């Protein structure tokens, strides 16, 4: 990060005036806890005793044989709640508690971040309200039930495209109205500073563990690390500790029905610079600067923006960004389930699909770590209804 809250030219704080005091308060609270050993030990204890960290780095002999390289999965699907999202919500909820906030609000797409927020709300005793697009509530009905079971209130969002982008809009509108006692617990490395920084730091535990684990097992660094990119939190979480290593980093976006059809969510592959939800980053937009509707088979990647640090890492070419399309994702969903007995979230299946599509890029001895950001139970009903997975 060069200037405060900036990643190259990207990042910043593009919010309405009412939220500025909240961001200033948040930044100072976060700065305080980030050097506080008590906060660190509280968080580490919760990660170990409650969330189930560290997560395994699983070698996959069957998939390795089929794909012609050494495949390891970083098992964020085994984190309590079923995805990496809890890494972030635990950190932010502890912070909210320190700040004396009385209420947590969140947005959710796939429902995984909503579930992870509902979990911390129940565990730490803070009321939770989750904004969720009506379309996503239908796609991810199981997660709506889970959130409500844990005491969170799920508020349907009926404006705009009724997906993740509009859920964030509504959460921001709620925050402006209730800014004094409400904490907005954002679910990815998006939004205004300090969110991209804070969420990245909370998610970096993934990469720190993976780096140590692979060195322990293989006595060397991997050749490539692959992760799916929606807002970009699981990807930056695993990439960040490898940034200064000689390791290829690959972020995989949702190609949807194909980038040329316009029905996709491949922000870094097909977008350009723009400002949405408080940050300057890549954005899917039309000529006039209106944000475009997106499509992805996975609700968690269905977002027209992306974290500003990824925008910088694309421009400086440290990370390679690619896209895979819905049918390839379904193949990967089936492939990993059959070959390894691990059902990936449709989001994470994008990363698996990339490796399946690009086997020629890897040699037999190459070590490839795929970030398995979540488990696929939430997607089973939806995929079954498509009848393409039989």
């Amino acid at each position, binding site marked *: 990060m060069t200037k405060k809250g900036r990643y190259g030219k990207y990042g*910043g*704080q*593009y*919010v*309405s*005036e*009412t*939220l*500025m*005091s*909240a961001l200033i308060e948040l930044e100072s609270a976060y700065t305080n806890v980030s050097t506080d050993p008590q906060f660190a030990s509280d968080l580490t204890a919760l990660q170990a005793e409650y969330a189930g960290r560290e997560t395994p780095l699983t070698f996959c002999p069957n998939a390795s044989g089929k794909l012609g390289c050494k495949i390891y999965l970083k098992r964020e699907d085994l984190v309590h709640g079923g995805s990496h999202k809890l890494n972030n919500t635990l950190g932010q909820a502890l912070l909210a508690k320190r700040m004396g906030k009385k209420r947590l609000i969140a947005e959710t797409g796939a429902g995984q971040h909503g579930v992870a927020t509902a979990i911390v709300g129940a565990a730490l005793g803070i009321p939770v309200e989750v904004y969720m697009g009506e379309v996503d509530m239908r796609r991810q009905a199981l997660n709506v039930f889970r959130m409500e079971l844990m005491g969170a209130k799920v508020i349907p969002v009926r*404006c*705009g495209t009724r997906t993740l*982008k*509009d859920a964030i*809009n509504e959460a*921001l*509108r709620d925050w*402006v*109205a*209730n*800014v*004094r006692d409400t904490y907005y617990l954002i679910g990815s490395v998006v939004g205004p500073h300090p969110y991209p920084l804070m969420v990245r730091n909370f998610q970096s535990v993934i990469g720190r563990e993976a780096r140590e684990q692979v060195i322990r097992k293989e006595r060397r660094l991997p050749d490539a690390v692959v992760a799916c990119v929606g807002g970009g939190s699981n990807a930056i979480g695993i990439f960040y500790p490898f940034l200064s290593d000689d390791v290829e980093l690959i972020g995989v976006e949702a190609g949807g029905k194909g980038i040329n059809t316009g029905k996709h969510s491949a922000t870094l592959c097909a977008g350009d*610079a*723009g*400002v*949405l*939800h*408080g940050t*300057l980053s890549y*954005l899917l*937009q039309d*000529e*006039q*600067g*209106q*944000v475009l509707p997106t499509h992805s088979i996975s609700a968690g990647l269905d977002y027209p923006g992306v974290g500003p640090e990824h925008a910088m890492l694309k421009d400086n070419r440290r990370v390679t960004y690619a896209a895979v399309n819905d049918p390839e994702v379904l193949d990967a969903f089936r492939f990993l389930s059959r070959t390894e007995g691990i059902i990936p979230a449709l989001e994470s299946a994008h990363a698996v699909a990339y490796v399946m599509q690009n086997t020629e890029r890897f040699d037999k001895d190459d070590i490839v770590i795929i970030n398995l950001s979540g488990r696929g139970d939430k997607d089973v009903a939806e995929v079954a209804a498509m009848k393409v997975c039989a």
Partner: protein
Amino acid sequence: MGRIEEVLTGSKSPVFIGFTVAGDPDKTTCVRIARALIAGGTDILELGVPFSDPVADGPTIQKADERALGAKTTPATVFAIVREIRTESDVPIVLLTYYNIVYRRGIERFYREAHDAGVDGILIADMPVEESDEVCNIASRRDIAPIFLISQTTSDKRIKKIAAKARGYLYLVAVLGVTGVRDEVSGRAIDLLNRVRRHTSLPLAIGFGISTPEQAQIWARAGADGVIVGSAIVEIVERNLKDPDAMERELKEYVTDMKKALIRDHLP
């Protein structure tokens, strides 16, 4: 002196600032709406540039943005509307926009086109003073007043920073929350007006939630230099979408009533 300053210094009573979304429900009707607002006595006209994701706005203005975008309103349309109003009126015109619209067009180009069309001020809803250096420099070169929001949560330190960069007037946000009609006037907003007054001699206009003559009078008595009405105007537009003649009549009557309420000598 610019048109905004002229109007504000020339008026003994608080001014009426009327907002509508440019291109809502379409270009032609929007020009008629602007004409009706001006005929009723609107002192400063604010035009919202429609955006797909208006996070500072409540449902009424969100829907107006959708109607305007449905009618294919672009910044070029907005400037064409301003030019058309300029052929018949010298009313100061302020654009309210979100930053991506400006960024996408190019800040230089947006402000040049705005200036050429006859725009007097621009408020970017999601541009806090900390991010505004480049925009303010360009605005000043184009002789366009950068208008800023101040809210109940703005600290005294930031009020000073904002007042140092703002021109024209300061836009005080009367409520915590998004745009939309509210029933009550909060005491905290009156405190805000007094607090800001201590730091600046810029005119103070207050908006968000104001719709009735009684509310306008509360602000006039509290010493506001202007009241801003948006959602209440857009609601009249929305109610009369099928009958533009009735829309025009109702808008003009509404503004006339609000203006009457603001005349200093009439204050109860």
